[in-house]
C-alpha cells in the first residue's frame, strides 16, 4: 500500500474514533445508574450493537495508534531493511493486540 493511502486511512480512522468514542462516552454518561456497575456491564456485553461498536473502535484505534507511532519512528531515517522490520512488527503487534482485545467482548457476548 502506498504511503498516501495509509495516510488517508489514518484520517478516516481518526474521524471514526472521534465519533465512535464520542458516542461511547456520551451514552455511558447519559445512561441511568452507574455504567460501571456489573449488571450494566453485563447488559452492554449482551448487546450486538455494542459489540459491533467495540470491534470498530478497536480496529480504528489500533490502526490509528500504530500508524502514528510508525510515522514517528520513520522520521529517524531508517534504512530500507529496518523499515520492513518495523512494518512487520507493527502488523504483528496490531494483530496481537486486536486478538486479545476482541476476545474480551466476544467472550462476554
Amino acid at each position, binding site marked *: 500500500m502506498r504511503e498516501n493511502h495509509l*495516510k488517508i486511512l489514518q*484520517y478516516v480512522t*481518526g474521524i471514526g*474514533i*472521534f465519533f465512535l*468514542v464520542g458516542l461511547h462516552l456520551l451514552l455511558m454518561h447519559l445512561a441511568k445508574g452507574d455504567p*460501571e456497575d*456489573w449488571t450494566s*456491564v453485563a447488559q452492554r*456485553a449482551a448487546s450486538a450493537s455494542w459489540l459491533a461498536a467495540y470491534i470498530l473502535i478497536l480496529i480504528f*484505534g489500533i490502526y490509528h*495508534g500504530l500508524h*502514528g*507511532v510508525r510515522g*514517528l519512528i520513520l*522520521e*529517524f*531515517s531508517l534504512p530500507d531493511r529496518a523499515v520492513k522490520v518495523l512494518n512487520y512488527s507493527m502488523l504483528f503487534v496490531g494483530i496481537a*493486540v486486536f486478538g*486479545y*482485545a476482541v*476476545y*474480551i467482548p466476544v*467472550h*462476554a457476548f
Partner: protein
Amino acid sequence: MEATSKQKVPLPNRLGIVGWAWAGRYKIERYLYTLHRLTGFGLLAYVALHLVANGSRLWGEGSWESTLNFLSNPGFKVGEYLVMAAFIYHALNGGRLMLQHLGFTLGKPKPPIYPYVDSMRRRRPLTLVLLALIMGLAIYVLVAFVIYG
C-alpha cells in the same frame, strides 16, 4: 539520472527527539504539533491500561469489582481527566492538521509583497479559535468531573 536517485535518500534526522522541542524559531503551530504527539502517546498508554482493566471482566464480577476499587483512587481520577483533555486536544488539533494537509485552510496564494506574511500566519486566527475551543471544552469537562465525580 543520478540526481533523481540522490533525491530518494532521506535526509538524516540530526536533531532527533530534541528537535520536537527546539530547532530555531518555532511558531505556535509547531508546538501544537509536538503536543499532538505527546497526547497521542498518552492516549495510547490509556488504551493499553483500559484494555487490561476491561480484561479483568473475564474472571467474573469479583475481579471486575476489585479492579474498579483499585482504579477509584484520586490519582486515577486526575489521570482520567487528563485523558479526556488529551482526547479533546488530539481530536480537534487532528482535525485542524487534516484540513491543512488537504489544503482546505491554506487560503489563496498571495504575491510576495513586503512585509511578507506567510500562510502559517494568515491562518493563525483558525489556530486561535481552535485553542479557545479546546480550553473551553477542557474547562467544561473539568467542572463536570468536579461536580459529578
